[in-house]
């Protein structure tokens, strides 16, 4: 039976792959730190984008609800952390208490957004969610008077870093003679959270709830006729997606130490949506890849465009910032032309089902 040998072989290969990926992920921050600590920070931001893209993927990819205001939940999580762990209210709660609060509050906001939009789909839903995202941002901008809650456009500064026992994630420590910087510590924390988030996503997709989401995405009328309570299942998608955004927001606050409403504009929502679409809507691995690519490519271009121009033309012809976004946009257009279903389209699932039956 060639199939049998093949399956065993594939399993061994898969395990080898897991080990290699684990080793690479474990030493990655130290390797990056050799190039520059900035790259560790960029990696951390990329992981935050992975959280956001996976959260949005539940709403857009699984349940098929186009959401252009997703960044609002990121903002909610970020502000919850900032308000509960900064001198602003003189509250300094530990992060493992704040993160669940942020996730829960984002969840509530998810339901708040979901309830009035239950009957909307496609373009109409996109417009309403876009408005919702802007409302949240404008609220954050203006909740400084009469009672100063958000400190308005000045934002909130001196946000506490994450502390676990004696480990302060903002400082450099010597571990076994190796200097472990703050960003490297955050990297490992984010990596752990990411493994949890990915596992939750994979398991949700391949479950009764995940199938119900996909049914709603494919045909809502048929889904209802099959006994699926589409109202609850859509609200659940909004709530789950939002809570991932809330967690990401909390970590963002802690890492940055400063947040302001500016960080939560429409462009950010569109960026996260682009990650989901580019990677492959509905496919967890594709979405992760999309988030990583779209976080890194602009940064790589930032560091290569200027030296490249100098080498070719001997002087700077175009501002790096301009050419960077130009190339970035061009890459997106090409992607959508040649791989409209994303880098990793969502057909992996089919094979998975086949192998389980065999």
């Amino acid at each position, binding site marked *: 039976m060639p199939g049998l040998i093949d399956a065993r072989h594939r399993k061994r290969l898969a395990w080898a792959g897991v080990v290699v990926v684990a080793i690479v992920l474990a030493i990655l921050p130290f390797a990056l730190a050799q190039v520059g600590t900035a790259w560790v920070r960029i990696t951390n931001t990329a992981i935050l984008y992975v959280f956001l893209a996976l959260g949005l993927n539940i709403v857009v990819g699984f349940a098929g609800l186009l959401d252009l205001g997703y960044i609002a939940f990121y903002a909610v999580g970020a502000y919850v952390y900032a308000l509960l762990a900064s001198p602003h209210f003189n509250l300094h709660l530990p992060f493992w208490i704040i993160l669940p609060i942020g996730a829960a509050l984002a969840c509530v906001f998810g339901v708040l957004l979901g309830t009035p939009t239950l009957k909307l789909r496609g373009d109409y839903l996109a417009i309403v969610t876009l408005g919702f995202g802007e409302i949240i941002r404008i609220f954050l901008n203006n909740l400084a008077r009469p009672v100063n809650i958000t400190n308005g456009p000045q934002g909130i500064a001196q946000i506490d870093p994450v502390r676990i026992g004696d480990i302060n994630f903002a400082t450099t420590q010597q571990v076994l003679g190796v200097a472990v910087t703050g960003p490297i510590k955050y990297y490992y924390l984010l990596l752990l959270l990411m493994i949890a988030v990915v596992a939750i996503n994979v398991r949700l997709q391949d479950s009764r709830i995940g199938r119900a989401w996909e049914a709603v995405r494919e045909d809502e009328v048929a889904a209802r006729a*099959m006994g699926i309570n589409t109202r609850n299942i859509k609200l659940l998608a909004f709530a789950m997606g939002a809570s991932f955004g809330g967690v990401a927001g909390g970590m963002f606050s802690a890492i940055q130490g400063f947040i302001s409403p500016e960080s939560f504009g429409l462009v950010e929502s569109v960026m996260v949506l682009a990650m989901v679409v580019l990677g492959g809507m509905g496919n967890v691995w594709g979405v992760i890849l999309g988030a990583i690519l779209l976080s890194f490519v602009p940064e790589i271009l930032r560091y290569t465009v200027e030296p490249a121009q100098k080498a070719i033309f001997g002087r700077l012809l175009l501002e790096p910032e301009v050419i960077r976004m130009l190339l970035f946009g061009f890459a997106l257009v090409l992607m959508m032309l040649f791989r409209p279903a994303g880098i990793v389209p969502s057909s992996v699932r089919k094979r998975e089902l086949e192998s389980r039956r065999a």
Partner: protein
Amino acid sequence: MTAAAPSPDVPATGGAHVLLAARGITKRFGGVQALSDVGFTINHGEIYGLIGPNGAGKTSLFNVLTGIYAPDGGEFVFDGNPLMNMKPNEVARRGIARTFQNIRLFGNLSALENVMIGRHVRTRAGVVGAIVRNAATRAEERAIHERAYELLEYVGVAAHANRFAKHLAYGDQRRLEIARALATEPKLLALDEPAAGMNATETASLKRLLAAIRGDGVTILLIEHDMKLVMSICDRVLVLDYGKKIAEGSAADVQKDPKVIAAYLGGEISLELPAR
């Protein structure tokens, strides 16, 4: 054929047990009277035909029955309980499953997943179960998977279990829709033109499938334009025209009814019973 065991608390008409009773069902769309004062009863274990010319209100009746439209008047009593102002998902939970005239499968999911989704309403696992994957959830998933595969075999599309529903042949899609509906464990299976677009061979095997489903104790409500099929398999037939009931009775009686012949058949279509 296995008729349901008699039980004293179910109201009976003519010795048979009523599964669904409709009284005075009325539905208007703007100025159009889609259904006016339609009443009928379907007995346990019956195959009940619903015929009428295009636009007679057959699909509207389906949509009112399954909660997609709210009726403007009248009521349904299903299995002894009123079925009023219910959402489609609640109707499905109560035990009425349907198919659609213009097939509505979950196209980008596999045939197997389509049927697995039909099990949703009879299973329980929630978000926590999905994430934790405790023993109960795993057992439930296995049961869903096995039952879905059995149903695919039952309707004869198991060979295409892992293909996308949208890539299946037309006749197979119709069968898959029936399997998905059966997965919800209905007491009443409502089929909206299941033979539409099928050739004679496919229709013959559909007829065998419907007989088998009825044999398993599921009552069937059948909208169909294929008169040969309707007349050969239905125990009783309801004829609608312009939203009104114009005849109800056995296939043999209905086809002799002058109103039916005049209003619906216009003499062009033969209502001869096919030789059995």
